[in-house]
């Protein structure tokens, strides 16, 4: 157990934590926006898969990483439009339409991969970006300043998202729509438009999350690449009480638990692997249970808005 507290282990553990947290953080920040506006998007995983494939495919063809990221953003936006059309315009039951979107994304990304690529291929993804000087700081350098650019972007988005939600008119509108769409409507806010925007923005971030797996962590695509991380991201929104900072802590907690259990296994701590694998899930539930802070759910969460009825 002493080994676990050595500097190498802690540095390695925290570095892996940031890597693993990145896709979760992108997706969960995006989902925060969707939910703040009152839409539960359970299809995050499907969006991530579609964008992960798009990014991978574009990079495979052009070797241009930024073009790949752009493709992920575009596909994410497209999937977001589908989700918002179904759940905002068509007022579908959001839990179910999200699952539909997830099934579609899972199937479609595998299908496209099979038809357009066919076999496992790797691309060279975003390299580690050592920030000059800062990465030299003992301990903190390797932990914080030796990741790839998407990791930095993800964490930079946390204060930005907070600022958008708390300090801008757009944020106010999103929250008003999620809290009381009828009141927002009577104040002249276009409820549907705000929800479209929030869901699509969320989907774009989910797209970047997918890309952060396929062109930055694993640098390849295969069937069901996300392995359900989209659902974890949705769960983290509840963990974070609909705040970007809370979501970030959730993503970090989940990821550090994961890298901790991997280190436990590597160092031969005598715990069955499957039990170690449970750690992040158990810890997330326990942590939320024992903390007092819950955040308040947007009052109109999961409720379609029909003018004159809510």
């Amino acid at each position: 157990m002493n080994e676990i507290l050595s500097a190498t282990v802690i540095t390695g553990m925290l570095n892996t934590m940031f890597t693993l947290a990145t896709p979760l953080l992108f997706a969960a920040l995006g989902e925060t926006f969707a939910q703040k506006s009152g839409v539960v998007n359970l299809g995050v995983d499907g969006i991530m898969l579609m964008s992960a494939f798009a990014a991978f495919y574009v990079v495979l063809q052009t070797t241009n990483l930024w073009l790949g990221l752009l493709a992920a953003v575009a596909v994410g936006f497209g999937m977001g439009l589908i989700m918002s059309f179904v759940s905002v315009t068509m007022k579908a039951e959001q839990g179910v339409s999200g699952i539909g979107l997830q099934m579609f994304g899972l199937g479609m990304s595998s299908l496209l991969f099979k038809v357009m690529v066919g076999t496992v291929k790797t691309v060279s993804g975003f390299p580690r970006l050592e920030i000059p000087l800062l990465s030299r700081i003992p301990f903190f350098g390797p932990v914080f300043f030796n990741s790839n650019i998407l990791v930095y972007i993800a964490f930079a988005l946390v204060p930005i998202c907070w600022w958008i939600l708390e300090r801008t008119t757009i944020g106010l509108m999103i929250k008003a729509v999620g809290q009381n769409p009828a009141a927002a409507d009577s104040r002249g806010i276009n409820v549907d438009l705000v929800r479209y925007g929030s869901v699509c923005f969320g989907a774009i971030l989910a797209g970047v999350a997918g890309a952060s797996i396929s062109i930055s962590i694993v640098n390849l695509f295969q069937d069901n690449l996300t392995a359900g991380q989209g659902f974890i991201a949705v769960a983290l929104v509840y963990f974070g009480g609909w705040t970007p900072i809370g979501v970030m802590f959730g993503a970090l907690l989940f990821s550090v638990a994961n890298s901790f259990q991997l280190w436990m296994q590597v160092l031969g701590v005598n715990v069955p692997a499957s039990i170690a694998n449970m750690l992040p899930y158990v810890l997330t539930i326990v942590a939320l249970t024992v903390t007092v802070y819950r955040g308040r759910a947007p009052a109109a969460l999961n409720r379609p808005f029909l003018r004159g009825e809510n």
Partner: protein
Amino acid sequence: MKTRQFACVVVMLLVAAMTVSASGQAEPMADDEGAFRIAVVMPSATTDTAFSQSMYSALVTVQEEMGGESAIELVYSETMFVVPDAAAAVRDYATQGYDLIVAHGSQYGSFIQDMAPEFPETAFAWGTDVNTFGLDNVYAYTAAAEQGGYVNGVMAGIMSAGGQIGVTGPVEVGDARTYISGFVQGVESVNPAAQVSQTWTGSFSDVALMTAAAQTHIANGADVLTGSSQSVVGSIGAAQEAGDVLWFGTQADQTSLAPELVVASQVYDWTDMLTEMIENAKSGVYGGEAYVLTLQNGGLKIGYNDGFDIPAEAIDAAEAAIAGIIDGSIVVEP
């Protein structure tokens, strides 16, 4: 209301129009008189660079060797991890008169046992297992993965400079377990001081976590990695990024994934077994045998990476281990 009815009618008309136009196309001709018909049902994708791909590419090879599509018709159903779906697929193929049906998943055993007696002239092969249920139209097959694991372990033990070796995998069962068991014995036989640590991620598809696991091994000083199943691609990626880390593969030849760091792979070669099954079926024998791929019968092969400069010492030790396993002087426990 009116517009919606109109929309409905339009949709129906479109469907009808498409039906008419599409029915003009020719039916795909599947049934070629005289061709030997093979169907395979697999739990994962044909492109998984592991379990399913090893079988599918063997079938394709056999098809080419035996005269191409006119001699052998090959159809497949992939990602059939749901047993009732696989059962439906197998029954479907059997009813359509396929000559050899390969049910490539150990979870498929129960329904093969129930179904095979109904189709006495169809050969069923299933694996990985060794149980033919006493039926004379059922083959069982498996791979003694511990043997190749041992050989890989011998090379790894010699080539690891720091004596720290990492193993990654999804769940410690089946041939992943036996491969690793053999690997550990191989390392011990040449380098008892070496440390082999294992991580299991609990998921067959979570490549990101598998990558993190490999990174963890590397951070802990591992200079040789190995692992099993689909998620290996994540580990190979991590090894690539780190550089200076060697990889040993299993199930399929993984050299192409990272030519600069794959030393050797244990390759499952089902072709001889399949060829024998096909020949048997043509002469009226549909099963009753259990095949185990081993180094002895050539079903297991060690694929060295020609592009990699493997030290002579390691190759010699590997060849000696292979010879020892074949003549029985080395016994590897699964």
